[in-house]
């Protein structure tokens, strides 16, 4: 009997809950001004921007540097979140969806048949939100490691307890097994820097106002391009021989393997790039989606679902931040290890 009662209670609870949300959504249809668009909300949180949105009406404006027949420098507050037209020596610029377009005096935008804007875009070297955060993360890293190196002058210092553990973990689990005990010393500082750089940027992305740097495909692409060039320039003769003329296989398979192997050179760094980008971005999207459930339902009871789930996802994201830093480093060490093997 008790069991049945529980089930009926649950049924009533959820039915009532769904009814409430239905009522609210019906109410919403009359008042179209307050419709909440989660896709726009998610996009604005994930993408890079020319100003740093802290609170409801609090923005940090960042410098904008344009190259259009000479450098032009002004602050992004001149755009007024895209409402204003900026005039620099009779050149007019407009900010639409975080992209800067060159327009005429009246801010006219040319559009093609699909509705895409085809105005000229000046070269944009601006210090955006992501660039500023990259600089901040470099400062944090310098601060931590200079403090660590200074602590070795004192006796019985405890600064290095955690960092030394990670240091030896990377050395014993990533560098030595993949690169070999003779050669790892040359590449080890690079992999250590890579690990801590990705880790600190992942962790900054989890902070409430922190921009997701490693969830930006250009950042991960440039990281993987560094690894691509290191592999290309430090690869041994044997590696190139295996790519262009695989030994000990029949001639037909040799010819078949050449395009696959050449494709493989480019696909390996590309998968590194996509993996980090997609993991971090997916985590952010899930987190924001759970939080925006509150605003979709416009109901206080929806926090019963959304808050515990978002805390769970947040904790998972902290684990993913460490895991992705580890995977990026270990896979790049693996690819480099294949290339430099004698």
């Amino acid at each position: 009997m008790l069991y049945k009662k529980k089930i009926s209670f649950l049924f009533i609870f959820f039915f009532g809950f769904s009814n409430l949300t239905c009522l609210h959504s019906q109410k919403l249809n009359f008042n179209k001004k307050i419709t909440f668009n989660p896709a726009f909300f998610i996009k604005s949180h994930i993408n890079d921007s020319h100003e740093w949105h802290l609170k409801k009406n609090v923005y940090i404006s960042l410098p904008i540097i344009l190259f259009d027949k000479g450098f032009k420098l002004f602050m992004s507050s001149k755009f007024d979140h895209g409402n204003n037209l900026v005039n620099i020596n009779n050149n007019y610029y407009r900010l639409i969806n975080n992209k800067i377009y060159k327009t005429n005096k009246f801010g006219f935008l040319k559009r093609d048949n699909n509705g895409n804007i085809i105005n000229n875009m000046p070269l944009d070297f601006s210090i955006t939100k992501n660039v500023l955060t990259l600089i901040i993360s470099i400062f944090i890293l310098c601060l931590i490691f200079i403090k660590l190196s200074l602590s070795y002058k004192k006796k019985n210092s405890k600064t290095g307890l955690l960092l030394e553990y990670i240091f030896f973990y990377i050395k014993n689990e990533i560098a030595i097994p993949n690169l070999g005990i003779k050669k790892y010393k040359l590449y080890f500082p690079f992999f250590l820097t890579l690990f801590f750089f990705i880790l600190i940027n992942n962790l900054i992305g989890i902070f409430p106002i922190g921009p997701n740097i490693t969830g930006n495909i250009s950042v991960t692409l440039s990281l993987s391009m560094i690894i691509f060039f290191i592999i290309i320039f430090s690869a041994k003769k044997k590696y190139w021989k295996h790519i262009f003329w695989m030994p000990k296989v029949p001639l037909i398979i040799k010819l078949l393997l050449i395009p696959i192997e050449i494709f493989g050179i480019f696909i390996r760094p590309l998968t590194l790039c996509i993996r980090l980008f997609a993991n971090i971005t997916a985590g952010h999207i899930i987190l924001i989606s759970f939080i925006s459930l509150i605003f979709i339902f416009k109901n206080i009871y929806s926090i019963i679902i959304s808050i515990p789930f978002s805390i769970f996802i947040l904790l998972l994201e902290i684990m993913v931040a460490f895991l992705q830093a580890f995977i990026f480093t270990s896979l790049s060490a693996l690819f480099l290890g294949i290339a430099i093997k004698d």
Partner: protein
Amino acid sequence: MEIHLYVGLSAIGAGIAVLGAGLGIGKIGSSALEAIARQPEASNKIQTAMIISAALLEGASLFGIVTVLLAVLK
């Protein structure tokens, strides 16, 4: 609110990509557990290999999910 057909189709595509990744990671996890049960002393090496192969697999399915994201959030 108007919802286009391609949004629904791409959501199904994302589901299929996640299904494939889930099957693959489950297989990797089960065989790694078996291997650790047989040889507990080699568990460190097995764990590292497991994480790397899971990451390689995940990368393949994330290609699909990124494509879906590009389609939906366009």
